Each structure stands twice: as structure tokens, then as C-alpha cells.
């Protein structure tokens, strides 16, 4: 392991951990430097598997996964104190948290070019991984897993599809949590989800069934109804209740801690969407409407 990358002291933590942790940079392609935070297993580091974790976005930091999901630390409300998470995944695995692509979190590129895509991200992450094994050769033979959540549903399988061909890595499999696996299925199922959870009523459901479904289909392809305006109109209230009514789209029964999905951004003088725009992106009526609202200028006078 690279001694220069070892975290010697975790600020805010009363008692420092007995296992080791490292933070530093991994080379990707070009001038990209991806920040990693490696947490050694609290059990048997030399025998336990090595697990890479990636949060989604695209563009969100995996360090948030470390500090708020399954890492060993929890940050206090004061933003200064740190406590231990007894259910950390480093109880059973060596965990790598990789901030990718460059431009996310502490990752950067010297050329400041942050335009990227799914294939480039997979390539960069693969290169970074190879660099990780160069820095930590003692883990080269460990069972290796790729895991992630949300848009990690794209990052993880695309990276896995590359790594599986790399014989230098002892790749065993991958895990996706609440991932984006298929745009159409994710969008179509959301309408069923909303109805079955009581977010929309029978009357709207009847309209959706009438305008968006075809008799010979086992499921209604809400996202694919090209050119059917009535279907698009019926879907509007579904999207509104899910994303614009104050519900927490990430946890239906949780509280909304603040920040709304659709708001007026005074800086750009435009309507901004903070939620992921995966849903219904193939429905022409809804995507056209979204674009219209987003492109609208002089909002104050016209869009009240």
C-alpha cells in the first residue's frame, strides 16, 4: 500500500480505527485523476473480498455512499463530529469508494475537460482500477466485486463488461442497488407503483388505461406512446404527484428534508429540475413539454 495515501487521522472521530484507510488519486485516461477512499476490512483484509462502490447521478460522489450509507463513519449534524456505523460493509469486505467521473467530488482533470459519456466513464474507471492494483498489489488476487446504486445501474454493468475480459483482475460479479437498468421499464413501472401506492386514484388510472394501453399488451408502455396526446396529458398528473407534490421520491414514506424537484432558478431565469430526468424521456408529449418549460425565458411574466 502507498504510505503517502494512508489516512493517519480522521478528524472528528473520538477513537481512531484499528483498521487502515487510504485516500489519494488513481490515474485514468489523459489527465484525469480519480479520487479514491479505500477502507480496509475490519475482519481479515487479506482474506476478505475487495468491493468497489459507485454512487450514481450521473455526477454524484461515492464518498456520500461512504459517509451516509454503508461506510464505517457517520457525520454528525454539526458537520464536525464523526461516529462509527456498526453496520458498515467493511465488516465483511475491503471497500473502495471511487469518485467518478473526473469533476465529481475531489476527482479532477488537469485539462478541465469534463465532458464524458457512459463508455468513457467505463474506460476511465477500468484504468483507475488497474492503477489501484498497482498501488495495492497485495489485493491483486482477492475476489473482486463491482457494486453501486442508482445511475450506478449503468456504471456498474458497463464497467463489469470490460473488467470481465481483464484476466489480471479476479472479477467475481457485480451488485446493483436501486439501479437504472432499463429506461422504459423504470418509467412504465413507476405509473403502476404510483397507482398501487395510492398516489393516484381510479379516475386517472382509468384514463391512463384508456389512452396509454393497448389490448394485446401484458403491460402498458406508458413511456412509449408516441404521438398520443391524451396519454401524455394523463401522465402529467402522475409525474406531478411523484416529483412536484412534496413527496420524497427517494423514500415515499420518508420526510422531505427540503429542496424541491422543480423550481425557478433566479440565476438563469429559467425553470430548473433537480430530479433525475430518466422517467418518460421517450414519451414525446412529456419530453416536449419539459423542454418547453426548460427553454422558457421571461418566466416571471408568462409562467406563473
Amino acid at each position: 500500500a502507498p504510505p503517502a495515501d494512508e489516512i493517519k487521522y480522521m478528524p472528528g472521530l473520538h477513537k481512531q480505527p484499528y483498521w487502515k484507510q487510504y485516500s489519494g488519486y488513481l490515474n485514468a485516461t489523459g489527465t484525469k485523476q480519480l479520487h479514491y477512499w479505500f477502507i480496509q476490512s475490519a475482519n481479515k483484509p487479506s482474506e476478505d473480498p475487495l468491493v468497489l462502490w459507485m454512487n450514481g447521478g450521473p455526477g454524484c460522489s461515492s464518498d456520500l455512499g461512504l459517509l451516509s450509507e454503508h461506510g464505517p463513519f457517520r457525520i454528525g449534524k454539526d458537520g464536525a463530529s464523526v461516529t462509527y456505523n456498526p453496520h458498515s460493509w467493511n465488516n465483511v469486505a475491503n471497500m473502495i469508494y471511487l469518485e467518478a467521473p473526473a469533476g465529481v467530488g475531489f476527482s479532477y482533470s488537469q485539462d478541465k475537460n469534463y465532458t464524458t459519456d457512459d463508455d468513457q466513464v467505463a474506460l476511465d474507471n477500468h484504468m483507475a482500477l488497474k492503477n489501484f492494483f498497482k498501488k495495492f498489489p497485495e489485493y491483486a488476487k482477492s475476489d473482486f466485486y463491482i457494486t453501486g446504486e442508482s445511475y450506478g445501474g449503468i456504471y456498474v454493468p458497463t464497467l463489469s463488461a470490460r473488467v470481465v475480459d481483464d484476466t489480471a483482475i479476479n472479477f467475481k460479479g457485480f451488485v446493483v442497488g436501486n439501479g437504472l437498468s432499463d429506461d422504459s421499464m423504470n418509467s412504465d413501472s413507476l405509473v403502476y407503483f404510483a397507482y398501487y401506492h395510492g398516489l393516484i386514484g381510479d379516475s386517472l388510472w382509468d384514463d391512463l388505461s384508456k389512452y396509454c394501453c393497448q389490448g394485446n399488451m401484458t403491460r402498458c408502455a406508458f413511456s412509449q406512446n408516441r404521438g398520443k396526446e391524451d396519454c401524455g396529458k394523463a401522465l402529467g398528473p402522475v409525474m406531478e404527484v411523484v416529483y412536484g407534490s412534496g413527496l420524497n421520491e427517494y423514500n415515499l414514506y420518508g420526510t422531505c428534508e427540503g429542496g424541491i424537484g422543480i423550481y425557478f432558478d433566479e440565476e438563469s431565469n429559467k425553470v430548473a429540475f433537480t430530479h433525475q430526468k430518466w422517467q418518460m424521456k421517450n414519451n414525446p408529449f412529456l419530453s416536449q413539454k419539459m423542454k418547453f418549460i426548460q427553454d422558457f425565458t421571461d418566466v416571471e411574466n408568462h409562467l406563473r
Partner: protein
Amino acid sequence: LTPPCLNYSNVVKYMNTAEVRKQLHIPDTVQKWDICSADINLNYGRKYNSMKDQYNKILLAKKKVMVYNGDIDMACNFLGDEWFVDSLNQKLVTERKAWHYTPEGTTSKQVAGFVKHFEDLTFVTVRGAGHMVPTDKPQPALIMITNYLQDIPF
């Protein structure tokens, strides 16, 4: 680009303190830390609408795959992922059934969620968890990943 309804201001504050940056070996020239980057998100080039080919490649190589979903998430809901997993047409090994855990400090077994096993592919739900499963249900999440990594039956 702060995700709606979530508040991570404590994490943002922590990560941007000088002492933390120093301990993490972050050069001074590197940008401030944030949860998500709007620049990346807004300029990102999506290439795929479905991951079917990638899953098939991995499954063909006989690697093990797990898809899990907190069942009250609406960003990537469990039903869509279950449809996706079903669509891969892997051989069904175990029908959908409940899996259990015993909450700490109790002796009563509770339903943690539901699980369906295919050949080299497992679909798991975590009951009462949202998008960030390990945050919402830390104990079942740890049991779930342990089962996967150590091939322990659910």
C-alpha cells in the same frame, strides 16, 4: 445539483473543512467537494437505454449478479428492476419468497424483504427502504451483502 428532499449539508460541511482535505491528501488546487456535480450531469452523454447486453455478457461468463431494491423508492422503483431481471430469462432456481432478519435487541424474526433466485442472478427487495438502502435499513443491508459475498442462502 442537490437531489430533492435530501439534506446532506453536514457531509458537505465536513468534507470541505481544511483539516479533512489535508488528511485525505487533497491538493489545494482541487475544487470544493459537493454531493453531485451539475456540470457533469448536464453535459453527460448517455449511450445506453438498457443494460441487457451487459448483464447477459456477465451471466454468460458465469459471474454472480445481485440486484436489490428498497421497495419504497420512486427514482428506480423495485417493480421496474424486477421486470428487468425477469426479462433476462435466466433459469429460475427459487420462487419469490420472504427473507428474514432479527432486529438487534429483539428475538423476533421479521420479514426483511423478498428474494427470487435465478441461475447466477439474485433479485432482492428490502422492505421499507428507499433509494439508499443501507441508510434506511442498515442491518438488513449488511446481512444482504454478506449473504451475497459469502454465498449464504437468504
